[in-house]
């Protein structure tokens, strides 16, 4: 780097504080580009170099990244909604009404949360289809596929537990219908239904249980699974590509 000008960028970057956080220069050459990835906690999940093939839009359609972006939007908007919502039968519905009418940006944030959740169910499933139809589940990625299937299930469970929280007719009857299906299972059905609802019918205990699952238990499960999922992508050699194909990896046929 040259020392000539005193531009704003220079003043910001040429001091000890900045250098203590970012140990490399601006990523304009390959060495600094590699370091930008390796030195960053946020970016080090990426390899320094990626296969050209894995950047092809028609191979991935960006569905995995979009799923993760949707998850982040949901975490942020969800935490924000928690400031204004109490999971009790007395106040849940009016809290949502207040969000829609009295809270600044309340309606926008709630809508963002709702539509992101719907979209995430769609995008995660499309991602699962993409991986299946391109054979991305094959060795050595078998177990990451299994994690992926679990992530799809957890996505639906998260969406499902959030469905009850507004405590309107749509939530109430959707949860009643769904838990009635659970109740119809042989032997364990009724016990499982009551475990979910905390009572014979959907009521105050069900709201608290669904809330706890929705904001604590399932997000933690989801975060851990996403962590393993991403970590394994790197451990398994990045995204699948035709260059890995071989005739005789296994004596299968």
């Amino acid at each position: 780097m040259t020392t000539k000008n005193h531009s704003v960028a220079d003043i910001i970057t040429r001091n000890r504080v900045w250098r203590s956080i970012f140990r490399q220069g601006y990523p304009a050459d390959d060495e600094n580009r590699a370091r930008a990835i390796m030195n960053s906690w946020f970016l080090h999940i990426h390899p320094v170099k990626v296969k050209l093939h894995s950047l092809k839009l028609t191979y991935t359609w960006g569905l995995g990244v979009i799923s993760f972006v949707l998850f982040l939007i949901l975490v942020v908007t969800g935490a924000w909604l928690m400031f204004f919502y109490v999971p009790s039968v007395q106040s849940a519905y009016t809290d949502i009404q207040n969000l829609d009418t009295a809270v600044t940006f309340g309606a926008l944030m709630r809508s963002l949360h709702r539509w992101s959740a719907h979209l995430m169910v769609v995008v995660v499933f499309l991602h699962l289809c993409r991986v299946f139809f391109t054979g991305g589940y094959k060795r050595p990625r078998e177990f990451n596929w299994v994690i992926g299937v679990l992530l799809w299930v957890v996505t639906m469970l998260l969406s499902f537990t959030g469905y009850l929280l507004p405590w309107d007719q749509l939530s109430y009857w959707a949860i009643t219908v769904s838990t009635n299906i659970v109740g119809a299972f042989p032997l364990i059905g009724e016990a499982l239904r009551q475990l979910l609802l905390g009572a014979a019918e959907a009521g105050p205990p069900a709201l608290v249980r669904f809330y706890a699952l929705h904001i604590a238990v399932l997000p933690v499960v989801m975060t851990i699974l996403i962590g393993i999922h991403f970590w394994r992508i790197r451990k398994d050699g990045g995204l699948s590509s035709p260059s890995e194909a071989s005739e005789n990896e296994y004596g299968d046929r």
Partner: protein
Amino acid sequence: METGKTREPIQEVFPRDPSRTYGLMELVRGTSPMVDKGPEDTVMSWPNLLVLELLAALGTSVVLLLWSAFVKAPLRELANPNVTENPAKAAWYFLSLQELLLHMHPALAGLIIPGLVIVLLMAVPYIDRSKKDVGIWFASKKGRLIAVGSAVYTFIWLLGLVLFDEFVRVRSIVAEPELWPGWVIPIIVVGGLIILLYVVIRRWRPSRREVLIGLFTAFVTTYFTLTIVGIFFRGMGMHLVWPWDLPPGALPF
């Protein structure tokens, strides 16, 4: 990174050399360790991958912000256990299960079939273990044809079955004992159709992956079709109606 490649000018791959006493006998499929894996097939993650990820994040955020600014998340009346919604629908991604519920025993529709689907999905990489066609959409031209054929086959049968059980009704033919319309007939019909699909696919002399592509496509088509039927074509008492004849509030979002 040095790959051990010679720096000689590009030559013909198999130059005719009169002094050689051997020649090219046969071409076989297979890869050497560095084939297609050299540095020329990779690019720096910064900026190539990160720019794409940023674009995906921005695109997703912008689309959702605009959508949420114009379409508010729904909020119905306060939950009331005494006023049953008709139709009472589950969350839209569970409507395929609710559709199955109309045609078979709840334990079969709500537990056994979805449980089997999830277990079989997880088992996919352990069934198809060959690495012959990793990273290729639908494996081959044959795989593509199998997918299309399977989708058409499944879609037509589903429409027929949904219409049959609405207008002729299995239960009007065999109602007693419950074992027949609840378990035996659904298992025979669903199982029989899957076996028939398998037998037809086998006539194409497919690889194991192509068989799985056919079966997975049948699953995706079923999930998609039954979800659409559940969202847009089920009205009062979950009877079939045209989307424009749906009672107000029948859409589950």
